[in-house]
């Protein structure tokens, strides 16, 4: 054996070990990255799922017109001034007659959500004949009580429970629970209400509608403009300086930080054109400028994938250049273009920073009804709730994130489906 062969043989073991190590690093990197993904999702879901349920308390409310301060056939003004809050307090006092001191009473009232009186108002306003009868109602409870019941804690042992509630309040909760007056139900409020300072009344409806309006504007603006731009650049543009400038520009715009688009929106649309602040229309314009490059780039790729023979055949039969595109190339490229559009819109749906700049961070209780109403969007709602000090908002935030992620998954799945189903390989 020659000298070199011995040397190589001797080093083989080490080299194979290095090979194994390298491979191991690769596997670790992938496993860690995917692990991060699962940790992230797990932490969100485990924090957020309780928000889809909330606790209700069953109370027999005696709709005494004297306590409410209304006549038996109340006018609507009387109804609005009626003392439903006092009635609920009275009902609670009757349920717990042993509570007498002022402080205790206050603590007792805290168990019921402030939303309860509005629910009571709605019930009575819908059917005034209920006045002076006794009705049995499921009313929303305060978020602390709700969290306590949902956590299935041992109520007979208050020391073991981590909560802001006092031991007395826990004892009352236990009494209510033992008499079957507490029930955990699906939280419909979360999907039907706007934002609120009270966690148990806060919902994502306003943000969802805001997102829908914003996305609608984004789609209506960015889709036609991006497709037109892609058609021009791919099919008609002469090879010259101007075209180069446009192309470089589009590629650069795709990498401009989103917050810079927010500055653009603030300076141009709000300060210069005086469009309304906080409105989905401005948000939609800003987001469509942001998603344009994404859609243009993917549309161009889709147009490029249509083979030239199609164009030549159409030209040969006497179609004008524009007819070639509108009758043949565009329909064939449409699945690819739509896929790119959906991905671009999914990006826009998750975008937050530029919308903060144009004032879509307002506290929105009312559900927006048009694109010029003040609104917020789902990611911004997440941002706002994440800042709230109440513990119950943590689960609300996570739940809102889960809803947001569901929408993103659906959109991306749709994009994948479109690609798989309609994509043609030439």
């Amino acid at each position, binding site marked *: 054996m020659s000298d070199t062969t011995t040397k190589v043989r001797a080093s083989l073991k080490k080299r194979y070990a290095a090979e194994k190590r390298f*491979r191991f690093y690769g596997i670790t*990197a992938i496993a860690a990255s995917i692990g991060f993904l699962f940790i992230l999702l797990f932490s969100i879901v485990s924090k957020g799922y309780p928000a889809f349920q909330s606790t209700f308390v069953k109370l027999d409310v005696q709709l005494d017109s004297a306590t409410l301060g209304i006549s038996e056939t109340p006018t609507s003004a009387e109804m609005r001034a009626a003392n439903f809050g006092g009635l609920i307090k009275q009902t609670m006092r009757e349920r717990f007659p042993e509570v007498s001191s002022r402080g205790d009473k206050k603590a007792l009232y805290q168990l019921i959500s402030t939303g309860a009186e509005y629910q009571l108002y709605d019930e009575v306003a819908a059917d005034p004949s209920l006045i002076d009868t006794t009705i049995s109602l499921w009313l929303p409870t305060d978020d602390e009580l709700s969290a306590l019941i949902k956590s299935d804690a041992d109520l007979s042992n208050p020391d073991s429970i981590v909560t802001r509630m006092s031991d007395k309040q826990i004892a009352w909760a236990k009494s209510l629970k033992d008499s079957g007056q507490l029930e955990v139900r699906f939280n419909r409020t979360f999907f039907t209400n706007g934002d609120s300072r009270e966690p148990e009344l806060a919902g994502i409806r306003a943000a969802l509608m805001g997102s829908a309006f914003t996305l609608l504007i984004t789609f209506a603006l960015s889709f036609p403009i991006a497709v037109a*731009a892609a058609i021009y650049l791919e099919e008609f543009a002469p090879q010259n300086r101007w075209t180069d400038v446009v192309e470089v520009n589009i590629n650069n715009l795709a990498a401009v930080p989103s917050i810079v688009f927010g500055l653009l929106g603030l300076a141009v649309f709000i300060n210069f054109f005086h469009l309304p602040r906080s409105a989905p229309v401005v948000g939609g314009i800003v987001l469509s400028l942001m998603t344009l490059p994404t859609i243009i780039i993917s549309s161009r790729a889709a147009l490029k994938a249509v083979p030239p023979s199609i164009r030549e055949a159409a030209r040969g039969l006497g179609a004008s250049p524009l007819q070639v595109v509108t009758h043949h190339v565009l329909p064939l490229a449409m699945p690819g273009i739509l896929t790119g559009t959906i991905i671009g819109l999914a990006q826009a749906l998750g975008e937050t920073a530029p919308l903060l700049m144009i004032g879509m961070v307002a506290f929105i209780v009312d559900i927006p009804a048009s694109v010029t109403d003040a609104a917020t969007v789902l990611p911004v709602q997440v941002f706002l709730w994440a800042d709230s000090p109440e513990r119950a908002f943590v689960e609300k935030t996570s739940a809102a994130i889960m809803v947001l992620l569901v929408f993103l998954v659906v959109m991306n799945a749709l994009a994948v489906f479109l690609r798989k189903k309609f994509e043609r390989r030439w």
Partner: protein
Amino acid sequence: MSATNLLLVTLGLALASFAYGRSRAYSVARLHGGVRSMHSLPSHYGMMVALWCALPALAIIVGWKLFEPAVVSSFLHDYIPQSVYEAGEKSVDLYKNDIGNLVDSHAIADIQDPEKKAAAQQLANLQHTSSLALVVLALAAAIAGASLALKRIKANTRARQNVEKIVHFFLISCASIAILTTLGIVLSVLFESIRFFQEVSIIEFITGTKWSPQTAIRVDQVGSSGSFGAVPLFLGTMLISFIAMVVAVPFGLMSAIYLAEYASRPVRNICKPLLEILAGIPTVVYGFFAALTVAPALRSFGATLGLSVSSESALAAGAVMGIMIIPFVSSLSDDVITAVPQSMRDGSYGLGATKSETIRKVVIPAALPGIVGGILLAVSRAIGETMIVVMAAGLAANLTANPLEAVTTVTVQIVTLLTGDQEFDSAKTLAAFALGLMLFVVTLCLNVIALHVVRKYREQYE
């Protein structure tokens, strides 16, 4: 008539003129012996009429709506009492806003103050006149355009060329929107920045080490002149971006190498989309994760080691940002690694190298320019990332390189300066635009360099 209704009416008119134009073209054709004798197809004639009907009207509506608020508010000047003017520009805006709200809610009759009532009445009149004028103008333009085009339906009118020219122009203008956007960004950021640099010297901005943008609310207030030294922000941004890259580059690069060189097809088909999911998660979700999960975990972990970790540490924000950027680095590196020609690998194997030796000594050096380009793009993304740092990094501008302490970044400051109450003339809000200019310039340079490097590299192996 509201703007939406007006748009709908215009569109209806356009549709009607399309149908009418086409049928008119058919009847003209009958005189000349069939459609074949016409220059263009009947639908081209219809399209021509529709475009001539809709375009002028649309242009009028859009232009009107863009400039109406500014014009109307300037007409209002004489109706605002002198006392409001003396109280400064802000109170004028407030007054105008107030009047606008009163008019919108149809509450003019309830106003007590006679001056205000007159102003509100005037605003309502102006708005009424304006909307009426718009309707008349837009509809007149639509009908005039359509009838002009209808007159031109003749056998030898080149309707197809006419239509195609308009469409071509539309396509070009859509492609130019990208340029307009860039121009808009540059101009809006630049103008406000220039106004800022008139108040604060550019030298102080770039080299100053003290950042506290609180300016005086009252003139005689003590100690709140505001200082705009942006160095702590730049350093904070760099620190967080650096931490992010320390996380993202090894994980991203090794994932890409494994997926491109070792993984079997099924493994690749599963792992690649999973990694892409990381890129699809909104940044606000990462911010929430960083602020509520990672930061407390780091803090308690630090406490067990006897380290004091800030609850808004640069480490938490940076690490989570790194996780977000992993798929970015990995997919860009994956592309360049797979672009390295197989013959280079074969040559290396032929000389007896193991797979990892081939990757380290042949593939990676060959792919290096592309990888560096990808990393530069990732850096530019880290610098411009906003939500994670807004939610997880601090607000106080500390000049420190310690990743366990709280630092602030350029993007955090832009957000905090521009959300909440705004006065557009204070140095405080203008500072946000100056920071935006810095951000734009730096990321643009990084992008241009990165795209150039990546393109050069691609050409090399094509």
